[in-house]
């Protein structure tokens, strides 16, 4: 095992203009926002995003003008409705969209995780998705059944926010968590993986219960300590979403201009994640804390 601990900014510098970037988390949970804010600070351009149900991360990058294309199952703000900056950019033709359903998107990442160039999927015929050129077909060599196919998802880089990990990059989840995501598959499918974690824990703590490791250090290029790394979204078993800040985000998203001002105040003017958190304030952050029920 080698030490993989890096600063958020060093890790984020691995992302280049034009990269295909997979983003983890689901809905308002575990969006890799500390890492995405670094991308905004670095002014990365022309990203193609691959996501499951994405919210703040995609909306942030869209609002900051970093995104050229998005593919996934959902972008929205859950309780808060649509993702305003993403939506505006799509409606203005600035972001190319590829809508996938859950089984097709899962298969895209599973194919990569299994080392295969494609996977067959049980057909979903008659929809616009299934008649696009990226959905093709194959005959079952045993039954002759015609199946549809998806290509393996090949991200240049994958960004996940996680609960805890050791300095070598072994990433662990708690015994009980909200498991409505595919971070495990995204991790296995990755070729260059950056994981930010709420807490860096001693390896001995990981080693005591290796079944709780869901991403092994061998897959990880960099692990970054980022408490509140999914703020203002939630990290289940650590903190809830900040409803006030989400409202401020949505309010600031009336136009490109107002969101850029919001971004400048919250991200641009903060040098790094630590400064960003100081600006939010320890008291407010502490008020969001929740406990585990292990």
């Amino acid at each position, binding site marked *: 095992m080698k030490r993989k601990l890096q600063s958020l900014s060093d890790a984020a510098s691995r992302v280049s203009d034009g990269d295909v970037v997979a983003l983890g988390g689901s809905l308002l949970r575990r969006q890799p926002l500390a890492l995405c804010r670094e991308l905004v600070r670095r002014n990365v351009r022309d990203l193609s995003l691959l996501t499951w149900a994405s919210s703040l991360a995609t909306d942030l990058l869209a609002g900051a003008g970093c995104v050229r294309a998005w593919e996934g199952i959902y972008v*929205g703000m859950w309780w808060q409705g649509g993702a305003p900056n993403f939506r505006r950019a799509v409606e203005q033709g600035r972001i190319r969209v590829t809508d996938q359903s859950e089984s097709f998107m899962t298969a895209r990442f599973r194919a990569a995780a299994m080392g295969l160039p494609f996977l067959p999927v049980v057909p979903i015929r008659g929809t616009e998705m299934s008649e696009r050129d990226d959905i093709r077909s194959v005959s079952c060599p045993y039954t002759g059944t015609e199946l549809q196919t998806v290509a393996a998802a090949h991200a240049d880089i994958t960004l996940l926010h996680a609960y805890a990990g050791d300095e070598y990059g072994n990433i662990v989840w708690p015994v009980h968590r909200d498991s409505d995501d595919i971070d495990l598959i995204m991790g296995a499918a990755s070729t260059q993986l950056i994981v930010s974690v709420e807490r860096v824990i001693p390896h001995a703590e990981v080693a005591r219960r290796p079944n709780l490791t869901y991403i092994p250090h061998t897959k990880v290029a960099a692990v970054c300590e980022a408490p509140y790394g999914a703020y203002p979204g939630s990290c289940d078993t650590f903190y809830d979403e900040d409803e006030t800040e989400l409202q401020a985000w949505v309010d600031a998203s009336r136009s490109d201009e107002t969101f850029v001002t919001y971004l400048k105040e919250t991200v641009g003017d903060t040098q790094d994640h630590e400064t960003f958190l100081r600006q939010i304030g320890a008291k407010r952050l502490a008020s969001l804390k929740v406990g585990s029920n292990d």
Partner: protein
Amino acid sequence: MTDITPTQNELMAVAISAALRDDDVVFVGVGTSGRAFTLAVGIPLVAARLAQLDHAPGLDIYWGNLLSPDLTDVPAHLTQDAITRWRGAYAPADVGQKVDMLVRGEFDVSFESAAQVDQHGNLNITRIGTPERPKVRLVGCLAQPEHLAFVRRPIIVTDLSSRVFVDHVDHITSFGYGNGTRSRESLGYSGGGPSLVVTDHGVFDFTADGRMRLRSLHSGVTLEDVRSRMSFGPEIAEDLSETSTPAASTLRAIREEIDPSGALLRT
């Protein structure tokens, strides 16, 4: 004493409940805010719980990524943490395992909201307008294409409005009964397709050739009310009736046992 006048939400929940069977495995999404939450989550959960208490004790609910959530104690405010702590039978390590259940055909019923529903039960939750410059970008696809492909009896739950009930959806996110020339059979589906459309004004099903058909009107609603809220003229059942009025005991169960805090049927 319970006010024996049911609300629209209660009528909708009771109509759905009647369509649920013992042994059904029903899928409920995690929903969004306001009215959309009530339609996608609140009404379906009340309906399912009502069915469990009434005629379907073995009915199973899969909510979000949690099978058989404990519905005896629904929190009034569904923060992430309330969801994280929710008790239940099974929450697989990655939601891909739930997707597999869906594709393997292990769900009997699902509940669908949509921005557009057409006369053939096709649904759109993706966009209004053209792909290149949509007039309105919606949320995406989620697992709704799978629901209409693999679930045995999906139920559409939405409010009646001519903006929603359109001749043809702008984008077929989820395939219902096609457009008359493309049937489910011709595409290789062996069953499925939307079974009911439960709205705030009445309940619809589909004819054998896949056109939406009005089956019952809620109390006080006229046929004209319904027609004025739809961009297409639905088929009308020969035995068009009034939606069943729930018994007082049913309303009491909803209000006192199932949703005492009003968290589910909030708006």
